[in-house]
């Protein structure tokens, strides 16, 4: 990796979070040169312990990370999810996803964001001059011309490439500069994130329990711990997050039951407001969006980053194939190919997730009955369950090469 001003590049990537880093790595693996721009140098941010969030990595996402050489370093700390149990309060039914129903591999792994970031940076460093990191850098202006686009940073530095990629999150600056509009749905809900130690082993079972205020997810971590994502109405969430550890643990216990024994929060505890942000287009002239910049979804199904990695896989394949044929990487023909490959998948998942949220966060008696019945019915129809599990694992439909575990 190099610092500072780059020479001519195939792509400029705005945003060096998980999506941006993975995009940079995938493109470099495909033989392309990239500049990665962020306000904060990811190499300094990665060392800190500020991000306690964990990410559920689906089977196909793990294949992608393995193919890019970024999985081995996190594998030792990744806890497999073998089964998922979805339950609804006051309903006798629950939905049990067993990984053996869809093949023999774990349904996913829970990985710490910090460890994943460090692994991606390690792999990027191996690409030497193909990747340069420009930080701190804030995008100030975007200009499109024949054959390329020029991004001007707030310090006056200019970066020109055939295509500029926005991996700069749900409040994407590039999206604004490119004039891509978004549709936002505010759920007035927030997720409390914490790490929980428990008395009894989790047996690699992930729990997702739907409550009137929102779902509570407990995802298995190593050393008899679980990652907690507790979603409530924002006011309530802010209140709960302030509770002392004993009271917080007791409140959680009351909601999820005793199967894990006594629950002890380990902290640090953080609160993330939830909203659904969907860009009206994946691409604009010489611009393409990946990850949260294109679609920040409610983390109810734990699919946000996996959806982002599906963007990365499709984009890397489209751009790499185009470069091998000498095509203009930022041409409408190439970028529309990317949008065409992604749009259906995103819309399906966003619609499903949004629908789930509304259905499961609604404390109306008739709906509760429907939910209870619904879960019971799904539980009894094996074909539907297999399809649902495979979608959660990310192996449904025709996949880009990286998601099948094949090189670019």
């Amino acid at each position: 990796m190099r610092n500072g001003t780059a020479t001519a590049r195939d792509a400029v990537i705005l945003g060096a979070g998980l999506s941006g880093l993975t995009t940079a790595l995938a493109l470099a693996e495909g033989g392309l040169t990239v500049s990665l721009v962020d306000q904060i140098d990811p190499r300094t941010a990665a060392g800190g312990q500020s991000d306690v969030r964990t990410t559920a990595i689906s089977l196909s996402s793990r294949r992608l990370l393995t193919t890019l050489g970024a999985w081995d370093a996190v594998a030792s700390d990744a806890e497999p999810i073998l089964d998922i149990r979805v339950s609804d309060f006051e309903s006798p039914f629950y939905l049990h996803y067993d990984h053996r129903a869809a093949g023999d591999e774990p349904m996913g792994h829970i990985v710490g964001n910090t460890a994943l970031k460090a692994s991606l940076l390690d792999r990027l460093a191996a690409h030497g001059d193909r990747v340069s990191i420009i930080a701190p850098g804030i995008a100030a202006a975007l200009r499109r011309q024949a054959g390329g686009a020029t991004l001007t940073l707030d310090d006056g530095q200019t970066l020109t490439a055939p295509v500029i990629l926005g991996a700069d999150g749900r409040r994407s600056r590039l999206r604004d500069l490119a004039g891509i509009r978004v549709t936002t749905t505010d759920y007035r809900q927030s997720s409390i994130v914490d790490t929980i130690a428990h008395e009894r082993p989790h047996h690699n079972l992930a729990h997702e329990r739907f409550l009137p205020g929102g779902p509570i997810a407990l995802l298995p971590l190593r050393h008899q711990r679980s990652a907690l994502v507790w979603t409530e109405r924002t006011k309530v969430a802010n209140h709960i997050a302030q509770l002392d550890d004993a009271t917080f643990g007791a409140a959680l216990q009351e909601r999820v039951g005793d199967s894990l024994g006594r629950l002890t929060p380990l902290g640090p505890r953080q609160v993330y407001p939830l909203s659904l942000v969907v860009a009206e287009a994946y691409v604009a002239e010489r611009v393409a969006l990946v990850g949260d910049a294109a679609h920040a979804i409610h983390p109810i199904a734990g699919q946000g980053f996996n959806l982002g990695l599906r963007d990365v896989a499709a984009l890397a394949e489209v751009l790499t194939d185009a470069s091998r044929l000498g095509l203009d990487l930022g041409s409408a023909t190439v970028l529309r190919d990317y949008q065409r490959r992604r749009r259906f998948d995103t819309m399906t998942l966003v619609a499903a997730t949004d629908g789930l949220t509304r259905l499961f966060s609604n404390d109306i008696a008739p709906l509760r009955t429907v939910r209870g019945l619904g879960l019971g019915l799904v539980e009894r129809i094996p074909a539907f369950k297999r399809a649902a599990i495979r979608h959660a694992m990310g192996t449904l439909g025709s996949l880009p090469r990286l998601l099948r575990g094949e090189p670019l």
Partner: protein
Amino acid sequence: MNGGRTGPGTSHGTVDPDDVDRFARLADRWWDPDGPHGPLHRYVPARMRVIRAALAPLASSIDPRRPLAGLSILDIGCGGGLLAEPMTRLGAAVTGVDADAAGIAAAQDHAEAVGLTIAYRAGAAEDLVTEGAKFDAVIASEVVEHVADKPAFCDALTALIRPGGTLILTTLNRTRRSWSQAIVAAEYVLRWVPRGTHDWNAFPTPEELTGLLQARGFTVEPAIGLVYDPIEGSFTESGDARVNYALVATRKD
């Protein structure tokens, strides 16, 4: 016409502003994927896959980004440069020739704007024969179906390729299916190309072209079918050469 233009706000006595506008419009039309040449844009990736696969072994370049480095390629009927530009990006030294002077001006314009060096010239392949020019490879994509005297055209192609060099043709087959698809669908239903663009009777079959080329000392590979998928909006290589196809031929030493 060398395609030289003045930008807005500059004064240059010899350039007619109407011309500038007209060329700008033409360049836009050639390079607008939603414009009249949209179908050709969609056809570029498949044609480039055929070209790359056929010519990379000839170049034996060690730079994966420039697999055609060191090759001289003549693109006959280059139009706005839809293939000339990607071939240049892959490292080839490309000469583009087209009888349509306005198309050549648009091509020149676009190449300059995107920073590619391509030797464009208005004229016919026969002009280059007269000059004694030789190339490592010659491409004639969607040309031969418009040529009345195919044997004479093949004579010119032969003269322009060095011994051991490669010829790549893409064209339309003369079949029942190509009649319904290329003429009825493309010209009348989808309005992809202006009516009367194609004369079905002039479409050559792979057998006819293969015969003409073998008689001129070429080794001709089996035709590669290029099939349009209306759902994906793209062309794919296939064994089905009933409508669009490519022929790759090597001139014997």
